[in-house]
């Protein structure tokens, strides 16, 4: 054995010298990110402080006017409020529906688990437009839901164009994200821990709330973060299912940019929207951090 060790000396010293060019592997990605991600965002920040003349896109002149317009208009706050409560409710509902799915998936094994996983991931890869369209068919005037409602109550429901339809669409789109995040955390829990709790005669209910739930909180946090950020910035579902009646912030920003052609105001609205999203996320992370701290203590 000693001979082999001598013949194959410790790798790092030799390898480091030979592989010193390896850092070039990361350069193209970083270049792409700096030039086409970081710089455009910084440029948008700059744009939000520029002057919008009546007859052109923008003038290189510093002003706070766009922010004044963005923040002082109560209409913007109504839209912001609607956007955030819908995203928040989506996060809570996907947690309620996604958790049982994740729990059931983690408990399964073999072929069954593979199939279940496919059923969760396949919808995730479908275009949001397609999923919005599916609900447009289902919730429409002659759709399946309305046929059942008509048969039960004799009345016709108006669903398309209401916040309810938008919520249904959002929850449908985001359940898989939440379920997969939670399943990731659940699969990390050692069966021994649960065995131990059960052998100490804890009831299944108690085992769940005292052991499984706290240990799955990192997954709940990751899923909540993902779903909230995606839901707050969703555009297709609110337009298709809300029929332009349910105005949310991304729609307002896109209108300002493309229809009103006001880049400085659109950028300022984006920054306000971005700032509030980041603040909400920060509060959420703090809350989750505290929840996880408690259970650890």
């Amino acid at each position, binding site marked *: 054995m000693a001979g082999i060790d001598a013949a194959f000396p410790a790798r790092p010293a030799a390898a480091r010298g030979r592989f010193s060019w390896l850092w070039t592997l990361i350069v193209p990605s970083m270049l792409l990110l700096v030039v086409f991600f970081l710089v455009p965002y910084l440029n*948008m920040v700059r744009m939000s402080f520029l002057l919008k003349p009546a007859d052109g896109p923008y003038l290189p002149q510093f002003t706070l006017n766009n922010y004044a317009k963005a923040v002082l208009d109560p209409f913007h706050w109504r839209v912001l409020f609607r956007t955030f409560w819908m995203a928040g409710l989506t996060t809570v509902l996907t947690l309620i529906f996604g958790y049982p799915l994740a729990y059931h998936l983690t408990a399964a094994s073999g072929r069954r688990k593979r199939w279940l996983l496919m059923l969760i991931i396949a919808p995730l890869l479908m275009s949001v437009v397609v999923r919005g369209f599916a609900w447009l068919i289902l919730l429409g005037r002659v759709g399946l839901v309305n046929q059942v409602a008509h048969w039960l109550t004799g009345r016709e429901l108006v669903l398309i164009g209401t916040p309810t339809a938008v919520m249904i669409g959002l929850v449908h789109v985001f359940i898989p994200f939440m379920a997969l995040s939670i399943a990731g955390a659940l699969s990390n829990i050692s069966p021994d821990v649960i065995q131990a709790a059960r052998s100490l005669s804890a009831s299944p209910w108690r085992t769940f709330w005292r052991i499984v739930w706290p240990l799955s909180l990192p997954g709940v946090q990751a899923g909540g973060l993902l779903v909230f950020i995606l839901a707050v*910035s969703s555009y297709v579902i609110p337009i298709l299912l809300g029929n332009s009646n349910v105005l949310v912030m991304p729609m307002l920003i896109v209108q300002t940019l493309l229809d009103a052609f006001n880049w400085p105001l659109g950028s300022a609205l984006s920054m306000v929207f971005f700032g509030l999203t980041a603040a909400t996320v920060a509060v959420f992370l703090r809350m989750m951090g505290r929840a996880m701290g408690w259970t650890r203590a």
Partner: protein
Amino acid sequence: MRRRGVLLSVVVTLIYLFLLVPIVIVVLAALNAGNYLAFPPQGISLRWFIKAAETGPFLRSFVFSLKLAGWVTALSTVLGTMAALYIVRHSRRFRTVLRLAIVAPLQFPAILTGIALLIFFFATGLGTRGMRALFIGHTLLALPYVFLTVSAVLVGFDRSLEEAAQSLGAGPLTTFRRVTFPLIKGGVISGALFAFITSFDQFPISLLLVSVGNTTLPIQLFDYLRFSFDPAAAAVSTVSVLMSVAIVLLVDRLVGLQAVSWSGQG
């Protein structure tokens, strides 16, 4: 105990139905022989697929989306694999920062990234005509998926195989070609498939960066749905449904869905 198991099964079945029934309805609507999107369908036919294929804008945007997704897949697969190799294997101090940087485009609202890119492309005079702007925007979002998938495969990689190759005199490139790549091939192909579908289905970035004559299929479908509502749209949607099902089956074959779906969050 038994009762609780049954209750969970019932609840879970209902949630799966909620997830999958709308998708099945779209496929059924596309196969509908009738003139309207009514339920139940009136007989089965492929007439709406033919109608969709004969609709110029659908066909043009389908071809455009395929081409665009092809280019995006090529670039993001190469860059993402390189980045994963470096970050998982060789980075020390900056590992976390680099990881966060690569996945950053997934953490930012895509619609804002689209807006930032739109303003940027006009401000620099590059403009959004042709495929260029879309190509860059889509690559930003496809790259992290390749990176995450290849990273997942690399984490379980046995380094001693490479060391064996090198101690037998193979250079770094030969080692990569003959040892490393064959071992991570499944992960790279899976990453490429995810990159492809990310680009093919991309909406928010495309919404802002499409130009006249260069429209992607999801945008074309979206515009169509705002003015008409017939089974041709369902036929187009079915293409997207079939594509995602095919990709799920392929990735499961190549590396196992579990490997890629749960590491993605970490």
